[in-house]
Protein backbone atom coordinates (compact mmCIF):
# COMPACT_ATOMS: atom_id res chain seq x y z
CA UNK A 1 0.00 0.00 0.00
CA UNK A 2 1.27 3.42 -1.00
CA UNK A 3 -0.19 6.47 0.68
CA UNK A 4 0.21 10.08 -0.32
CA UNK A 5 -0.89 12.53 2.33
CA UNK A 6 -1.22 16.18 1.35
CA UNK A 7 1.83 15.92 -0.91
CA UNK A 8 2.92 19.05 -2.67
CA UNK A 9 5.80 19.46 -5.09
CA UNK A 10 7.10 22.80 -6.23
CA UNK A 11 10.31 22.81 -8.27
CA UNK A 12 13.05 25.38 -7.73
CA UNK A 13 11.92 27.25 -10.84
CA UNK A 14 8.49 27.83 -9.33
CA UNK A 15 6.57 25.15 -11.26
CA UNK A 16 4.01 23.37 -9.13
CA UNK A 17 4.09 19.82 -10.42
CA UNK A 18 1.92 18.16 -7.79
CA UNK A 19 -0.75 19.98 -5.86
CA UNK A 20 -1.92 18.78 -2.47
CA UNK A 21 -2.18 15.13 -3.40
CA UNK A 22 -3.90 12.71 -1.09
CA UNK A 23 -4.22 9.30 -2.63
CA UNK A 24 -3.86 5.71 -1.58
CA UNK A 25 -2.79 2.98 -3.91
CA UNK A 26 -3.88 -0.45 -2.74
CA UNK A 27 -1.34 -3.24 -2.26
CA UNK A 28 -1.40 -5.93 -4.91
CA UNK A 29 -3.15 -3.75 -7.46
CA UNK A 30 -2.26 -1.71 -10.51
CA UNK A 31 -2.88 1.99 -10.03
CA UNK A 32 -2.61 3.89 -13.29
CA UNK A 33 -1.81 7.60 -13.36
CA UNK A 34 -3.16 9.34 -16.46
CA UNK A 35 -3.50 12.90 -17.64
CA UNK A 36 -2.25 15.21 -20.32
CA UNK A 37 1.42 16.03 -20.72
CA UNK A 38 3.01 17.95 -17.89
CA UNK A 39 0.30 17.27 -15.34
CA UNK A 40 2.68 15.78 -12.81
CA UNK A 41 2.41 12.03 -13.36
CA UNK A 42 6.13 11.40 -13.54
CA UNK A 43 6.78 13.68 -10.59
CA UNK A 44 4.18 11.81 -8.53
CA UNK A 45 5.73 8.48 -9.47
CA UNK A 46 9.29 9.62 -8.77
CA UNK A 47 8.39 10.87 -5.34
CA UNK A 48 7.64 7.28 -4.36
CA UNK A 49 11.28 6.22 -4.77
CA UNK A 50 12.62 9.59 -3.74
CA UNK A 51 13.99 10.46 -7.14
CA UNK A 52 12.07 13.65 -6.41
CA UNK A 53 11.64 14.92 -2.85
CA UNK A 54 8.22 16.32 -1.96
CA UNK A 55 8.09 19.96 -0.89
CA UNK A 56 5.56 19.08 1.81
CA UNK A 57 3.36 16.19 2.83
CA UNK A 58 4.27 12.57 3.51
CA UNK A 59 4.42 9.36 1.54
CA UNK A 60 4.17 5.97 3.19
CA UNK A 61 5.00 2.66 1.54
CA UNK A 62 3.68 -0.31 3.49
CA UNK A 63 3.20 1.90 6.48
CA UNK A 64 6.72 3.32 6.54
CA UNK A 65 7.48 6.95 5.85
CA UNK A 66 9.85 6.82 2.89
CA UNK A 67 11.71 9.89 4.10
CA UNK A 68 12.87 8.00 7.16
CA UNK A 69 14.75 5.55 4.95
CA UNK A 70 18.07 5.83 3.14
CA UNK A 71 17.20 6.88 -0.42
CA UNK A 72 19.51 4.41 -2.18
CA UNK A 73 18.31 1.49 -0.03
CA UNK A 74 14.70 2.53 -0.60
CA UNK A 75 15.25 2.53 -4.38
CA UNK A 76 16.74 -0.95 -4.30
CA UNK A 77 13.53 -2.14 -2.67
CA UNK A 78 11.33 -0.60 -5.36
CA UNK A 79 11.36 -1.71 -9.01
CA UNK A 80 11.61 1.17 -11.46
CA UNK A 81 10.95 0.94 -15.20
CA UNK A 82 11.26 4.01 -17.42
CA UNK A 83 10.15 4.83 -20.92
CA UNK A 84 13.30 4.44 -22.97
CA UNK A 85 14.13 1.41 -20.81
CA UNK A 86 17.18 3.25 -19.40
CA UNK A 87 19.32 0.15 -19.82
CA UNK A 88 23.07 0.41 -19.37
CA UNK A 89 24.48 0.32 -22.91
CA UNK A 90 27.88 -1.01 -21.80
CA UNK A 91 26.52 -4.02 -19.96
CA UNK A 92 25.09 -7.23 -21.31
CA UNK A 93 21.40 -7.87 -20.88
CA UNK A 94 22.15 -10.36 -18.12
CA UNK A 95 24.31 -7.87 -16.22
CA UNK A 96 21.68 -5.19 -16.67
CA UNK A 97 19.09 -7.43 -15.06
CA UNK A 98 21.49 -8.33 -12.27
CA UNK A 99 22.02 -4.67 -11.30
CA UNK A 100 20.01 -4.52 -8.10
CA UNK A 101 20.93 -7.99 -6.83
CA UNK A 102 24.59 -7.00 -7.24
CA UNK A 103 24.00 -3.74 -5.39
CA UNK A 104 22.37 -5.77 -2.63
CA UNK A 105 25.51 -7.89 -2.41
CA UNK A 106 24.06 -11.17 -3.58
CA UNK A 107 27.31 -12.13 -5.27
CA UNK A 108 27.88 -12.55 -8.98
CA UNK A 109 26.82 -16.16 -9.29
CA UNK A 110 23.52 -15.87 -7.53
CA UNK A 111 22.71 -12.57 -9.24
CA UNK A 112 23.36 -14.07 -12.68
CA UNK A 113 21.29 -17.14 -11.96
CA UNK A 114 18.45 -14.94 -10.88
CA UNK A 115 18.87 -12.76 -14.00
CA UNK A 116 18.74 -15.80 -16.27
CA UNK A 117 15.56 -16.90 -14.53
CA UNK A 118 14.01 -13.49 -15.16
CA UNK A 119 14.84 -13.57 -18.86
CA UNK A 120 12.42 -16.43 -19.07
CA UNK A 121 9.84 -14.74 -16.86
CA UNK A 122 9.62 -11.78 -19.23
CA UNK A 123 9.57 -13.98 -22.31
CA UNK A 124 13.09 -13.52 -23.67
CA UNK A 125 15.24 -16.25 -25.16
CA UNK A 126 18.11 -17.51 -23.02
CA UNK A 127 20.80 -16.29 -25.43
CA UNK A 128 19.45 -12.74 -25.32
CA UNK A 129 21.29 -12.51 -22.01
CA UNK A 130 24.68 -12.34 -23.67
CA UNK A 131 23.67 -9.53 -25.99
CA UNK A 132 23.94 -5.80 -25.45
CA UNK A 133 20.86 -3.58 -25.20
CA UNK A 134 21.38 -1.90 -28.57
CA UNK A 135 21.27 -5.32 -30.20
CA UNK A 136 17.65 -5.77 -29.10
CA UNK A 137 14.40 -4.37 -30.50
CA UNK A 138 12.56 -1.66 -28.58
CA UNK A 139 10.02 -4.17 -27.29
CA UNK A 140 12.73 -6.56 -26.13
CA UNK A 141 14.53 -3.72 -24.38
CA UNK A 142 11.35 -2.91 -22.47
CA UNK A 143 11.14 -6.54 -21.40
CA UNK A 144 14.69 -6.31 -20.09
CA UNK A 145 13.71 -3.11 -18.29
CA UNK A 146 10.87 -4.97 -16.59
CA UNK A 147 13.15 -7.90 -15.75
CA UNK A 148 15.70 -5.54 -14.20
CA UNK A 149 13.00 -3.96 -12.06
CA UNK A 150 11.81 -7.38 -10.88
CA UNK A 151 15.25 -8.83 -10.20
CA UNK A 152 15.34 -8.40 -6.44
CA UNK A 153 11.64 -9.26 -6.16
CA UNK A 154 10.52 -5.88 -4.82
CA UNK A 155 6.96 -5.62 -3.55
CA UNK A 156 6.44 -2.32 -5.38
CA UNK A 157 6.95 -1.60 -9.06
CA UNK A 158 6.97 1.88 -10.59
CA UNK A 159 6.48 2.05 -14.34
CA UNK A 160 6.71 5.34 -16.22
CA UNK A 161 5.24 4.97 -19.71
CA UNK A 162 7.10 1.70 -20.10
CA UNK A 163 5.35 0.78 -23.35
CA UNK A 164 5.11 4.27 -24.77
CA UNK A 165 7.75 3.84 -27.44
CA UNK A 166 6.75 0.52 -29.00
CA UNK A 167 4.31 -0.19 -31.80
CA UNK A 168 0.67 -0.99 -30.98
CA UNK A 169 0.96 -4.73 -31.61
CA UNK A 170 3.97 -5.15 -29.34
CA UNK A 171 2.37 -2.83 -26.82
CA UNK A 172 -0.68 -5.08 -26.59
CA UNK A 173 1.59 -8.10 -26.12
CA UNK A 174 3.54 -6.38 -23.37
CA UNK A 175 0.32 -5.33 -21.65
CA UNK A 176 -0.97 -8.90 -21.77
CA UNK A 177 2.23 -10.15 -20.27
CA UNK A 178 2.22 -7.55 -17.56
CA UNK A 179 -1.28 -8.69 -16.59
CA UNK A 180 -0.19 -12.32 -16.64
CA UNK A 181 2.90 -11.51 -14.55
CA UNK A 182 0.85 -9.48 -12.14
CA UNK A 183 -1.48 -12.44 -11.61
CA UNK A 184 1.52 -14.53 -10.60
CA UNK A 185 3.53 -11.99 -8.69
CA UNK A 186 0.87 -9.80 -7.10
CA UNK A 187 2.97 -6.64 -6.92
CA UNK A 188 1.81 -3.19 -6.01
CA UNK A 189 2.20 -1.42 -9.33
CA UNK A 190 2.05 2.26 -10.13
CA UNK A 191 1.84 2.76 -13.87
CA UNK A 192 2.03 6.05 -15.75
CA UNK A 193 0.60 6.40 -19.24
CA UNK A 194 -0.82 8.92 -21.70
CA UNK A 195 -2.91 6.26 -23.30
CA UNK A 196 -6.36 6.02 -21.82
CA UNK A 197 -7.02 2.67 -23.50
CA UNK A 198 -3.89 1.30 -21.83
CA UNK A 199 -5.07 2.68 -18.49
CA UNK A 200 -8.45 0.97 -18.89
CA UNK A 201 -6.82 -2.33 -19.82
CA UNK A 202 -4.29 -2.44 -17.05
CA UNK A 203 -5.68 -0.46 -14.19
CA UNK A 204 -7.43 -1.75 -11.13
CA UNK A 205 -7.75 1.90 -10.31
CA UNK A 206 -7.14 4.92 -12.47
CA UNK A 207 -6.11 8.33 -11.16
CA UNK A 208 -6.79 11.18 -13.58
CA UNK A 209 -4.66 14.30 -13.17
CA UNK A 210 -5.09 17.68 -14.72
CA UNK A 211 -2.53 20.36 -15.43
CA UNK A 212 -1.11 21.90 -12.29
CA UNK A 213 -0.74 18.50 -10.67
CA UNK A 214 -4.29 18.21 -9.40
CA UNK A 215 -5.91 14.83 -8.99
CA UNK A 216 -9.41 14.99 -10.42
CA UNK A 217 -10.72 11.49 -9.99
CA UNK A 218 -9.50 8.13 -8.83
CA UNK A 219 -11.77 5.20 -9.54
CA UNK A 220 -12.03 1.75 -11.10
CA UNK A 221 -12.06 1.76 -14.91
CA UNK A 222 -15.76 0.90 -15.06
CA UNK A 223 -16.68 3.64 -12.66
CA UNK A 224 -14.52 6.18 -14.41
CA UNK A 225 -16.04 5.40 -17.78
CA UNK A 226 -19.59 5.25 -16.52
CA UNK A 227 -19.42 8.32 -14.31
CA UNK A 228 -16.60 10.73 -15.04
CA UNK A 229 -16.38 13.20 -12.17
CA UNK A 230 -16.52 16.29 -14.34
CA UNK A 231 -16.41 17.48 -17.96
CA UNK A 232 -12.61 17.54 -17.86
CA UNK A 233 -12.43 13.82 -17.14
CA UNK A 234 -15.19 13.07 -19.66
CA UNK A 235 -13.31 15.03 -22.26
CA UNK A 236 -10.08 13.29 -21.39
CA UNK A 237 -11.70 9.86 -21.73
CA UNK A 238 -12.69 10.87 -25.24
CA UNK A 239 -15.48 10.16 -27.67
CA UNK A 240 -15.06 6.41 -27.42
CA UNK A 241 -15.76 6.30 -23.73
CA UNK A 242 -18.91 4.22 -24.26
CA UNK A 243 -17.11 1.68 -26.38
CA UNK A 244 -14.27 1.44 -23.88
CA UNK A 245 -16.78 0.58 -21.18
CA UNK A 246 -17.94 -2.31 -23.36
CA UNK A 247 -14.35 -3.50 -23.54
CA UNK A 248 -14.55 -4.19 -19.80
CA UNK A 249 -17.63 -6.36 -20.03
CA UNK A 250 -17.24 -10.02 -20.98
CA UNK A 251 -19.48 -11.74 -23.45
CA UNK A 252 -20.05 -14.41 -20.84
CA UNK A 253 -23.66 -15.34 -20.38
CA UNK A 254 -25.02 -13.74 -23.55
CA UNK A 255 -27.27 -16.50 -24.97
CA UNK A 256 -25.88 -18.82 -27.62
CA UNK A 257 -28.09 -20.14 -30.37
CA UNK A 258 -27.56 -22.92 -32.87
CA UNK A 259 -26.23 -21.87 -36.25
CA UNK A 260 -29.27 -21.25 -38.46
CA UNK A 261 -29.91 -23.88 -41.15
CA UNK A 262 -30.39 -22.70 -44.70
CA UNK A 263 -30.30 -19.05 -45.60
CA UNK A 264 -27.68 -17.34 -47.72
CA UNK A 265 -24.70 -17.78 -45.38
CA UNK A 266 -23.27 -21.08 -44.25
CA UNK A 267 -20.71 -21.36 -41.46
CA UNK A 268 -17.92 -23.67 -42.63
CA UNK A 269 -16.22 -25.71 -39.91
CA UNK A 270 -12.76 -27.21 -39.98
CA UNK A 271 -11.38 -30.12 -37.92
CA UNK A 272 -12.37 -30.03 -34.26
CA UNK A 273 -15.47 -27.99 -35.16
CA UNK A 274 -13.36 -24.87 -35.54
CA UNK A 275 -15.12 -22.18 -37.54
CA UNK A 276 -13.28 -21.44 -40.80
CA UNK A 277 -15.45 -18.80 -42.42
CA UNK A 278 -18.76 -17.88 -43.95
CA UNK A 279 -19.66 -19.26 -47.37
CA UNK A 280 -22.05 -17.41 -49.62
CA UNK A 281 -24.44 -20.08 -50.88
CA UNK A 282 -25.75 -17.79 -53.60
CA UNK A 283 -22.28 -17.50 -55.12
CA UNK A 284 -21.63 -21.19 -55.81
CA UNK A 285 -19.14 -23.13 -53.68
CA UNK A 286 -15.41 -23.56 -53.12
CA UNK A 287 -13.29 -22.61 -50.11
CA UNK A 288 -11.89 -19.64 -51.97
CA UNK A 289 -15.13 -17.78 -51.47
CA UNK A 290 -15.00 -17.97 -47.64
CA UNK A 291 -15.45 -14.69 -45.78
CA UNK A 292 -13.29 -14.53 -42.67
CA UNK A 293 -14.77 -15.09 -39.22
CA UNK A 294 -13.21 -14.17 -35.88
CA UNK A 295 -14.79 -16.50 -33.33
CA UNK A 296 -15.09 -15.17 -29.78
CA UNK A 297 -14.65 -16.86 -26.43
CA UNK A 298 -16.69 -16.14 -23.34
CA UNK A 299 -13.87 -14.07 -21.87
CA UNK A 300 -13.78 -11.76 -24.88
CA UNK A 301 -15.39 -8.40 -24.41
CA UNK A 302 -18.69 -7.05 -25.50
CA UNK A 303 -16.73 -4.56 -27.56
CA UNK A 304 -15.17 -7.35 -29.63
CA UNK A 305 -18.63 -8.83 -30.08
CA UNK A 306 -19.97 -5.51 -31.28
CA UNK A 307 -17.07 -5.20 -33.64
CA UNK A 308 -17.55 -8.72 -34.94
CA UNK A 309 -21.30 -8.29 -35.36
CA UNK A 310 -20.70 -5.25 -37.54
CA UNK A 311 -18.13 -7.09 -39.66
CA UNK A 312 -20.01 -10.37 -39.99
CA UNK A 313 -21.86 -10.70 -43.32
CA UNK A 314 -25.02 -12.01 -41.66
CA UNK A 315 -24.79 -10.11 -38.38
CA UNK A 316 -24.03 -13.22 -36.34
CA UNK A 317 -21.25 -13.42 -33.78
CA UNK A 318 -19.64 -16.86 -33.74
CA UNK A 319 -18.87 -18.26 -30.27
CA UNK A 320 -16.33 -20.94 -29.40
CA UNK A 321 -15.07 -22.67 -26.27
CA UNK A 322 -11.54 -22.46 -24.93
CA UNK A 323 -10.50 -25.17 -27.41
CA UNK A 324 -11.78 -23.08 -30.31
CA UNK A 325 -14.68 -25.45 -31.07
CA UNK A 326 -18.03 -23.94 -32.08
CA UNK A 327 -20.54 -23.47 -29.26
CA UNK A 328 -23.14 -21.36 -31.04
CA UNK A 329 -23.89 -17.94 -32.41
CA UNK A 330 -25.34 -14.71 -31.02
CA UNK A 331 -27.20 -12.17 -33.08
CA UNK A 332 -26.27 -8.56 -33.65
CA UNK A 333 -29.49 -7.47 -31.92
CA UNK A 334 -28.72 -9.41 -28.76
CA UNK A 335 -25.23 -7.89 -28.62
CA UNK A 336 -26.64 -4.40 -29.07
CA UNK A 337 -29.28 -4.91 -26.40
CA UNK A 338 -26.71 -6.16 -23.94
CA UNK A 339 -24.44 -3.22 -24.72
CA UNK A 340 -27.28 -0.85 -23.92
CA UNK A 341 -28.21 -2.46 -20.61
CA UNK A 342 -24.54 -2.75 -19.70
CA UNK A 343 -24.18 0.99 -19.91
CA UNK A 344 -27.20 1.62 -17.81
CA UNK A 345 -26.17 -0.85 -15.13
CA UNK A 346 -22.57 0.32 -15.04
CA UNK A 347 -23.81 3.83 -14.36
CA UNK A 348 -26.02 2.47 -11.56
CA UNK A 349 -23.23 0.30 -10.19
CA UNK A 350 -20.85 3.22 -10.11
CA UNK A 351 -23.22 5.25 -8.01
CA UNK A 352 -24.05 2.37 -5.67
CA UNK A 353 -22.42 2.13 -2.23
CA UNK A 354 -18.95 0.59 -2.15
CA UNK A 355 -18.58 -3.15 -2.48
CA UNK A 356 -15.50 -5.20 -3.28
CA UNK A 357 -14.66 -4.44 -6.90
CA UNK A 358 -14.15 -7.25 -9.36
CA UNK A 359 -10.86 -7.49 -11.20
CA UNK A 360 -11.61 -6.34 -14.76
CA UNK A 361 -9.25 -8.86 -16.34
CA UNK A 362 -11.05 -11.78 -14.70
CA UNK A 363 -14.24 -10.78 -16.43
CA UNK A 364 -16.88 -11.08 -13.78
CA UNK A 365 -20.09 -9.70 -15.19
CA UNK A 366 -20.35 -5.98 -14.61
CA UNK A 367 -23.78 -6.10 -16.20
CA UNK A 368 -26.92 -7.63 -14.67
CA UNK A 369 -27.81 -9.77 -12.85
CA UNK A 370 -25.10 -9.00 -10.30
CA UNK A 371 -24.02 -5.43 -10.76
CA UNK A 372 -20.47 -5.01 -9.60
CA UNK A 373 -19.67 -1.79 -7.96
CA UNK A 374 -16.58 0.14 -7.20
CA UNK A 375 -15.23 1.61 -4.03
CA UNK A 376 -15.85 5.28 -3.63
CA UNK A 377 -13.44 7.82 -4.93
CA UNK A 378 -10.60 8.73 -2.67
CA UNK A 379 -8.68 11.90 -3.06
CA UNK A 380 -10.03 14.11 -5.78
CA UNK A 381 -9.89 17.78 -6.45
CA UNK A 382 -10.64 19.95 -3.48
Amino acid at each position, binding site marked *: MIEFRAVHKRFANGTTAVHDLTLSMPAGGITVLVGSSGCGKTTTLRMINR*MVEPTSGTIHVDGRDICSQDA*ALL*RRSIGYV*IQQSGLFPHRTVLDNIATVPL*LLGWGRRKARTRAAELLETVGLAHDAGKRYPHQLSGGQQQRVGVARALAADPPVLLMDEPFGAVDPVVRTQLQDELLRLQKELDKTIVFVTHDIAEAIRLGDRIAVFRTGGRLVQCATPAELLARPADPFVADFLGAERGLMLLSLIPLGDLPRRPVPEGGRWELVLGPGRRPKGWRDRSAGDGDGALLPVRPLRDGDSLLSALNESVGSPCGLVVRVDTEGALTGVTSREEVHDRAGTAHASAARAASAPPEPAPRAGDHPPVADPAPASAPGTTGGAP
Partner: protein
Amino acid sequence: MGELLMDLGAWLTSGDQWSGVDGIANRLGEHLEYSLIATVIAAAIALPTGLLIGHTGRGAFLAINLSSFGRALPTVGLIVLVFLASGLSMTPVYVSLVALAVPSIVTNTYAGMRAVDPETRDAARGQGMRAHQVLLRVEIPLALPLIMTGLRLALVQVVATATIAAYVSFGGLGRYVFDGLAQRDLVQVLGGAVLVAAVALVLDLALAALQRALFVNRPA
Protein backbone atom coordinates in the same frame (compact mmCIF):
# COMPACT_ATOMS: atom_id res chain seq x y z
CA MET B 1 66.33 15.14 -53.78
CA GLY B 2 66.71 11.51 -54.71
CA GLU B 3 70.16 11.56 -53.27
CA LEU B 4 68.91 13.01 -50.02
CA LEU B 5 66.35 10.21 -49.70
CA MET B 6 69.05 7.62 -50.40
CA ASP B 7 71.22 9.14 -47.68
CA LEU B 8 68.28 9.23 -45.30
CA GLY B 9 67.58 5.57 -46.01
CA ALA B 10 71.19 4.69 -45.38
CA TRP B 11 71.21 6.71 -42.14
CA LEU B 12 68.10 5.04 -40.83
CA THR B 13 69.20 1.51 -41.67
CA SER B 14 72.89 1.52 -40.86
CA GLY B 15 73.69 -0.75 -37.95
CA ASP B 16 76.04 1.83 -36.41
CA GLN B 17 73.29 4.39 -36.23
CA TRP B 18 71.17 2.10 -34.05
CA SER B 19 73.68 1.27 -31.33
CA GLY B 20 75.51 3.22 -28.69
CA VAL B 21 74.49 6.16 -26.51
CA ASP B 22 73.70 8.27 -29.53
CA GLY B 23 72.12 5.31 -31.33
CA ILE B 24 68.51 5.33 -32.46
CA ALA B 25 67.52 2.54 -30.05
CA ASN B 26 68.73 4.49 -27.03
CA ARG B 27 67.32 7.82 -28.19
CA LEU B 28 64.00 6.16 -28.97
CA GLY B 29 63.94 4.67 -25.47
CA GLU B 30 64.62 8.08 -23.92
CA HIS B 31 62.02 9.70 -26.09
CA LEU B 32 59.36 7.18 -25.09
CA GLU B 33 60.35 7.47 -21.45
CA TYR B 34 59.93 11.26 -21.42
CA SER B 35 56.67 10.99 -23.29
CA LEU B 36 55.18 8.33 -21.06
CA ILE B 37 56.19 10.04 -17.84
CA ALA B 38 54.77 13.36 -19.05
CA THR B 39 51.54 11.73 -20.18
CA VAL B 40 51.11 9.81 -16.95
CA ILE B 41 51.62 12.98 -14.89
CA ALA B 42 49.21 14.84 -17.14
CA ALA B 43 46.64 12.05 -16.79
CA ALA B 44 47.00 12.09 -13.01
CA ILE B 45 46.07 15.75 -13.06
CA ALA B 46 43.61 15.84 -15.94
CA LEU B 47 41.52 12.69 -15.43
CA PRO B 48 40.20 13.55 -11.97
CA THR B 49 39.62 17.13 -13.10
CA GLY B 50 37.65 16.08 -16.17
CA LEU B 51 35.69 13.45 -14.22
CA LEU B 52 34.83 15.89 -11.48
CA ILE B 53 33.70 18.59 -13.89
CA GLY B 54 31.72 16.03 -15.90
CA HIS B 55 30.10 14.41 -12.87
CA THR B 56 29.11 17.64 -11.15
CA GLY B 57 28.58 19.72 -14.28
CA ARG B 58 30.43 22.53 -12.51
CA GLY B 59 33.35 24.36 -14.11
CA ALA B 60 32.33 23.33 -17.61
CA PHE B 61 33.66 26.56 -19.13
CA LEU B 62 37.11 25.57 -17.87
CA ALA B 63 36.95 22.18 -19.54
CA ILE B 64 35.77 23.68 -22.79
CA ASN B 65 38.20 26.59 -22.97
CA LEU B 66 41.21 24.69 -21.75
CA SER B 67 41.68 23.07 -25.13
CA SER B 68 41.95 26.33 -27.04
CA PHE B 69 44.18 27.67 -24.32
CA GLY B 70 46.35 24.58 -24.69
CA ARG B 71 46.63 25.06 -28.42
CA ALA B 72 47.66 28.68 -28.02
CA LEU B 73 50.32 27.87 -25.44
CA PRO B 74 53.82 28.31 -26.92
CA THR B 75 55.62 25.17 -25.75
CA VAL B 76 59.09 26.45 -26.50
CA GLY B 77 58.31 29.74 -24.79
CA LEU B 78 57.14 27.85 -21.74
CA ILE B 79 60.18 25.65 -21.61
CA VAL B 80 62.50 28.65 -21.76
CA LEU B 81 60.53 30.35 -19.05
CA VAL B 82 60.60 27.39 -16.69
CA PHE B 83 64.21 26.76 -17.63
CA LEU B 84 65.10 30.29 -16.58
CA ALA B 85 63.19 29.89 -13.35
CA SER B 86 64.37 26.41 -12.34
CA GLY B 87 67.70 25.96 -14.00
CA LEU B 88 68.96 23.04 -16.00
CA SER B 89 66.96 19.94 -15.26
CA MET B 90 64.21 17.82 -16.79
CA THR B 91 61.64 19.87 -14.86
CA PRO B 92 61.07 22.49 -17.57
CA VAL B 93 60.67 19.71 -20.14
CA TYR B 94 58.07 17.89 -18.10
CA VAL B 95 56.25 21.07 -17.14
CA SER B 96 55.91 22.00 -20.80
CA LEU B 97 54.88 18.55 -21.95
CA VAL B 98 52.36 18.15 -19.15
CA ALA B 99 50.90 21.56 -19.90
CA LEU B 100 50.56 20.44 -23.48
CA ALA B 101 48.86 17.15 -22.60
CA VAL B 102 46.46 18.22 -19.87
CA PRO B 103 43.94 20.11 -22.04
CA SER B 104 43.26 17.21 -24.45
CA ILE B 105 42.67 14.84 -21.57
CA VAL B 106 40.46 17.18 -19.55
CA THR B 107 38.40 18.20 -22.57
CA ASN B 108 37.85 14.68 -23.82
CA THR B 109 37.14 13.25 -20.37
CA TYR B 110 34.62 16.00 -19.81
CA ALA B 111 33.07 15.41 -23.23
CA GLY B 112 32.84 11.68 -22.48
CA MET B 113 31.09 12.31 -19.20
CA ARG B 114 28.67 14.77 -20.79
CA ALA B 115 27.90 12.30 -23.56
CA VAL B 116 26.48 9.85 -21.01
CA ASP B 117 22.73 9.87 -21.62
CA PRO B 118 21.06 11.62 -18.66
CA GLU B 119 18.40 8.90 -18.81
CA THR B 120 21.05 6.29 -18.19
CA ARG B 121 22.48 8.22 -15.27
CA ASP B 122 18.98 8.70 -13.92
CA ALA B 123 18.24 4.99 -14.33
CA ALA B 124 21.39 4.15 -12.40
CA ARG B 125 20.28 6.33 -9.53
CA GLY B 126 16.76 4.95 -9.80
CA GLN B 127 18.03 1.38 -9.38
CA GLY B 128 19.60 2.45 -6.11
CA MET B 129 23.22 3.25 -6.99
CA ARG B 130 24.95 5.79 -4.79
CA ALA B 131 26.83 8.71 -6.35
CA HIS B 132 30.20 6.91 -6.41
CA GLN B 133 28.59 3.78 -7.83
CA VAL B 134 27.00 5.80 -10.61
CA LEU B 135 30.43 7.28 -11.36
CA LEU B 136 32.40 4.03 -11.23
CA ARG B 137 29.88 1.61 -12.72
CA VAL B 138 28.11 3.74 -15.27
CA GLU B 139 29.64 7.11 -16.07
CA ILE B 140 33.31 6.15 -16.34
CA PRO B 141 32.72 2.96 -18.34
CA LEU B 142 30.50 4.89 -20.72
CA ALA B 143 32.93 7.79 -21.00
CA LEU B 144 35.90 5.46 -21.45
CA PRO B 145 36.07 5.55 -25.26
CA LEU B 146 36.39 9.33 -25.23
CA ILE B 147 38.72 9.29 -22.24
CA MET B 148 41.00 6.97 -24.18
CA THR B 149 40.81 9.23 -27.20
CA GLY B 150 41.97 12.09 -24.99
CA LEU B 151 44.89 10.05 -23.67
CA ARG B 152 45.84 8.99 -27.17
CA LEU B 153 45.78 12.55 -28.51
CA ALA B 154 47.80 13.72 -25.53
CA LEU B 155 50.40 11.00 -25.97
CA VAL B 156 50.79 11.71 -29.67
CA GLN B 157 51.16 15.44 -29.06
CA VAL B 158 53.69 14.79 -26.33
CA VAL B 159 55.71 12.39 -28.49
CA ALA B 160 55.79 14.95 -31.29
CA THR B 161 56.87 17.67 -28.91
CA ALA B 162 59.32 15.74 -26.71
CA THR B 163 62.04 16.76 -29.16
CA ILE B 164 62.36 19.89 -27.03
CA ALA B 165 64.14 17.85 -24.35
CA ALA B 166 67.14 17.99 -26.62
CA TYR B 167 66.74 21.75 -26.93
CA VAL B 168 67.71 21.99 -23.26
CA SER B 169 70.51 19.46 -23.70
CA PHE B 170 68.72 16.24 -22.79
CA GLY B 171 68.22 13.16 -24.94
CA GLY B 172 65.44 11.73 -27.02
CA LEU B 173 65.00 11.72 -30.77
CA GLY B 174 65.20 15.53 -30.73
CA ARG B 175 68.95 15.12 -30.31
CA TYR B 176 69.26 14.30 -34.02
CA VAL B 177 67.25 17.35 -34.96
CA PHE B 178 69.14 19.82 -32.83
CA ASP B 179 72.57 18.24 -33.36
CA GLY B 180 71.89 18.02 -37.08
CA LEU B 181 70.95 21.69 -37.15
CA ALA B 182 74.11 22.63 -35.27
CA GLN B 183 76.28 20.49 -37.57
CA ARG B 184 74.35 21.54 -40.69
CA ASP B 185 73.74 17.81 -41.25
CA LEU B 186 70.45 17.80 -43.11
CA VAL B 187 70.25 14.02 -43.26
CA GLN B 188 70.45 13.74 -39.51
CA VAL B 189 67.79 16.46 -39.01
CA LEU B 190 65.51 14.69 -41.41
CA GLY B 191 66.20 11.30 -39.86
CA GLY B 192 65.24 12.62 -36.42
CA ALA B 193 62.07 14.22 -37.75
CA VAL B 194 61.04 11.10 -39.64
CA LEU B 195 61.59 8.95 -36.56
CA VAL B 196 59.51 11.23 -34.37
CA ALA B 197 56.71 11.27 -36.90
CA ALA B 198 56.85 7.50 -37.29
CA VAL B 199 56.70 6.88 -33.55
CA ALA B 200 53.75 9.25 -33.17
CA LEU B 201 51.94 7.61 -36.07
CA VAL B 202 52.55 4.06 -34.90
CA LEU B 203 51.37 4.86 -31.37
CA ASP B 204 48.30 6.60 -32.71
CA LEU B 205 47.34 3.69 -34.94
CA ALA B 206 48.08 1.07 -32.31
CA LEU B 207 46.04 2.83 -29.65
CA ALA B 208 43.18 3.45 -32.07
CA ALA B 209 43.16 -0.26 -32.89
CA LEU B 210 43.17 -1.10 -29.19
CA GLN B 211 40.20 1.21 -28.65
CA ARG B 212 38.28 -0.41 -31.45
CA ALA B 213 38.98 -3.84 -30.05
CA LEU B 214 37.98 -2.83 -26.52
CA PHE B 215 34.73 -1.13 -27.47
CA VAL B 216 33.56 -3.47 -30.16
CA ASN B 217 30.24 -3.96 -28.35
CA ARG B 218 29.36 -0.30 -28.11
CA PRO B 219 26.53 1.11 -30.19
CA ALA B 220 27.82 3.11 -33.14
